[in-house]
């Protein structure tokens, strides 16, 4: 977690609910030994000042995160965490302000496009899930060849069109992974959808996939 991160407790709770043991690590730490995987949670690291994720990517911890990614360990970025992974070059592309320049907090439908990732391995291609989106800068641009699209915004029926694209992301991209699938990022918040009393438990599928990817180091 970075100064300004605010979803860290929610993510830890969701990981624990899915059977993992989670510990919060401060961004100045330089040691992730003993951990099997990393989640960069959402929030507003460094206030989102300058550009989302721009300052955070220089935190000491990010070298360790990069090392884990290179070693094939699962690395997941949610919302602001996704923005940080993009700024750090661990995923391609960048995130800009939403098309209509308003913060947007509401559930969105997502279609699973690939199961070759730590986030989607337990899902089916074409499966439609519902998860809350909560961001101002969620408008994804410019994927590079080699990386894969794992989630797209869609309607309840799985149809991808302009109307179901909440923020103007290119090709309705909601989540990306690297070619190996061990580094993944998405704008919506799966940790907010792990219990039906909160509106949806579809997020458990994604968090569960991540947890399943954490075989002991």
């Amino acid at each position, binding site marked *: 977690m970075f100064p300004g991160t605010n979803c860290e407790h929610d993510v830890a709770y969701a990981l624990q609910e899915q059977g993992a043991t989670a510990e919060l690590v401060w961004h100045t730490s330089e040691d992730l030994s003993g951990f099997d995987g990393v989640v960069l949670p959402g929030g507003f690291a*460094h*206030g989102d*000042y*300058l550009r989302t994720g721009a*300052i955070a990517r*220089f935190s000491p911890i990010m070298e360790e995160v990069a090392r884990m990614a290179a070693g094939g360990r699962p690395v997941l970025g949610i919302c602001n965490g996704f923005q940080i992974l993009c700024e750090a070059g661990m995923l391609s592309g960048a995130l800009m302000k939403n098309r209509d320049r308003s913060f947007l907090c509401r559930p969105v439908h997502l279609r699973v496009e690939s199961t070759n990732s730590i986030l989607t391995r337990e899902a089916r291609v074409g499966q439609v899930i519902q998860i809350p989106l909560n961001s101002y800068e969620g408008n994804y641009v410019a994927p590079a060849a080699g990386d894969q699209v794992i989630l797209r915004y869609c309607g309840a029926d799985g149809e991808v069109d302009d109307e179901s694209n909440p923020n103007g992301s290119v090709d309705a991209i909601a989540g990306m992974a690297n070619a190996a699938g061990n580094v993944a990022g998405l704008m919506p918040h799966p940790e907010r959808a792990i219990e039906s009393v909160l509106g949806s438990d579809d997020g458990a599928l994604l968090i569960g996939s991540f947890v399943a990817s954490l075989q002991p180091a």
Partner: protein
Amino acid sequence: MRVRVNVQRRPGIADPEGSTTAQALRSLGFDEVGTVAIGRAILVEVETDDQDEARGRVEEMCRQLLTNPVLEDFEIEVLA
């Protein structure tokens, strides 16, 4: 004509984004950095060949819409 408006926060008004950025630059080793201010650069294309007219119209746009006089000062530069 292309006109650029540089919008900056009025002196004395807090600029948390600027000061956070200055700090980040220093911690990256740019010790020579003093204050940093982050404003907006607005490029406007105006259909006219008259520099003065372009400037005048854009000034009017700034007053009406482009800037917030409570927080911001602006400067106009006619580019070409």
